[in-house]
């Protein structure tokens, strides 16, 4: 289903969601944009479709995964005899996520929900979220979704995809939920569709990187003990910046707390870059060397999740490239692996 929304129509639509207190969208937070509940559409930092921050049109600092897999959430409370489920999952409308984050949502659904046993919290959060994505017309230098099988106008994992053209947006429903959102809007004109297509091609043309994913997988299949890891790793300080901000990174730790008499079990994001991540109860830690930790991250993105659930877990959002304090670029690492393993 395809429709056309004039800019004012979109504003009105979003205002309805905002009025109901359900709308989350990118707002300006210091030097970057981040997710917040919005009450007025004017706070949203999409100038048309993209926010210009740091001289580049970049995606939100935190990925949209926070809506299905928050950094910390209470799984249940314990009343002394049994576990009591306490987390109430609210209905939310997320506006302004980009196709890479949409694709990451599809990955998380595949990983947590379709891959049995399912994770009930992720499933419920995804069910109660309506994801209205906006296609990218000007990808950032650090974006590379096309190199990992995605695209700047792709709708996978979203409910609605909006593609900005002159005067408004061509809207496409990706799911039934999306059809409900777009119900009642008129079909787009031929010109609008042609323009959207043209913008897609232009955007794709800006992303020059190509990765031979098949060969990369073959190389990684054999590359566990390769010297390339040591060479690549000196610079990496094994922080959690890249994993925490990656839209598909999904590892968590479980922690118990008693707060004012209430016993809670929570889960919190964990990172394969931390030594504690692989610490055994015996005290033994099989992955003490930093190279092994960096290797795990790359292997996970391009090999392990492919083996496990048949999907890459890098969607090319470029966040890790932008935030790494060591200046490490996963695109360069991949190129070196292809050359050197």
């Amino acid at each position: 289903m395809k429709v056309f929304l004039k800019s004012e129509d979109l504003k009105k639509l979003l205002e309805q969601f905002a009025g109901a207190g359900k709308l989350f969208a990118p707002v300006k937070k210091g030097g970057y944009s981040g997710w917040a509940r919005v009450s007025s559409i004017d706070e949203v930092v999409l100038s048309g479709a993209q926010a210009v921050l740091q001289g580049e049109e970049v995606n939100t600092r935190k990925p949209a995964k926070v809506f299905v897999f928050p950094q910390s959430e209470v799984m249940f409370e314990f009343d002394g005899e049994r576990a009591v489920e306490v987390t109430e999952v609210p209905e939310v409308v997320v506006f302004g996520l980009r196709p890479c984050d949409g694709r990451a949502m599809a990955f998380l659904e595949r990983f947590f929900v379709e891959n049995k046993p399912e994770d009930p919290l992720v499933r419920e959060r995804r069910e109660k979220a309506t994801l209205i994505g906006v296609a990218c017309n000007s990808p950032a230098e650090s974006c590379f979704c096309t190199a990992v099988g995605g695209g700047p106008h792709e709708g996978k994992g979203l409910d609605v995809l909006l593609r900005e053209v002159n005067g408004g947006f061509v809207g496409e429903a990706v799911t039934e939920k999306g059809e409900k959102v777009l119900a009642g809007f008129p079909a787009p004109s031929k010109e609008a569709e042609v323009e959207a297509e043209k913008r897609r091609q232009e955007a794709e043309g800006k992303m020059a990187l190509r990765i031979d994913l098949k060969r990369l997988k073959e190389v990684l299949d054999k590359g566990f003990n390769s010297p390339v890891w040591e060479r690549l790793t000196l610079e990496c300080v094994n922080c959690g910046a890249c994993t925490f901000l990656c839209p598909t990174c999904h590892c968590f730790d479980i922690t118990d707390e008693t707060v004012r008499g209430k016993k809670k079990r929570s889960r919190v994001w964990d990172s394969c870059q931390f030594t504690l991540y692989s610490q055994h109860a015996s005290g033994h830690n099989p992955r003490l060397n930093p190279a092994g930790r960096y290797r795990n991250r790359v292997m996970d993105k391009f090999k392990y999740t492919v083996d496990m659930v048949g999907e890459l877990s890098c969607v090319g959002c470029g966040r890790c490239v932008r935030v790494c304090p060591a200046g490490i670029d996963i695109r360069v690492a991949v190129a070196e692996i292809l050359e050197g393993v």
Partner: protein
Amino acid sequence: MDKVARLRERAKELLEKQEVVGVLGYRASSRPGISQVAFITRPEEVDRLIFDSACSQNLANYLLKVKDKGKVAVVARGCDSRSIVVLLQEKQIEREKVYILGVGCEGVVVQGEKSVACRSCRYPNPVIYDEMVGEEVHFEPETVEDEFDRLTPDEWWEVLSAEVARCIRCYACRQVCPNCYCPVCFVDASMPALVGKTHNVSDNIVFHIMRALHMAGRCVECGACHRACPMGIDLMRFNRQVAKIVRERFGLVAGAKPDEMPALTIFKPDDPQEFIR
């Protein structure tokens, strides 16, 4: 000859004469505005070395990673050299195993502006070195207002809470700091756990206060942690205040004088604080 050319020349000589096993410096990354750390071990690779305003990392941190390889040369500005001093004082490295290539520094530039830490820098030149590469640098440091002086404790709490609310506990700040080398960090202690693992403000503030306190008399205000933070948290607000207290109460500046012992390990008969005397 410019600084970088001289640096490459000296790195080459040191490697060729096998005086060091490697040279720790900077190289360009794929991104504008941030460099990458380089550990050069072959004379033919020295041309990768650079030194400019994108050199964001504190190399003393990396010294800890390569110190077991043998004697290492390291490029050091004022702040890096002070971190080296702190590491020497704390017996983490041996002086004979480090060859310091001193460089004067105009400050790190982030998003077109001089990094917060560098604006008030009083030590652009190394305080300890084996040789200087290029000229010393001199500039007038800016005075950064100490906001905490005019705030009540309650207001402080508000300011700190708001600042750390965005923290995602990725520990990039800890990982890039040369002084954060504890084999088990207090946040990672699990039996018993010392700090809650969620990212709500109360857990975050405990982390930040403990981190700042662990830095007392040790933090050289290089700003590496501030620049590393992916959430833009101004860690210099904490560091500056802690350093100021150490300066006022102990009369000491971390790593500034190689032959002076650090604040928390010495007793001075002329301590500025009355109650200690």
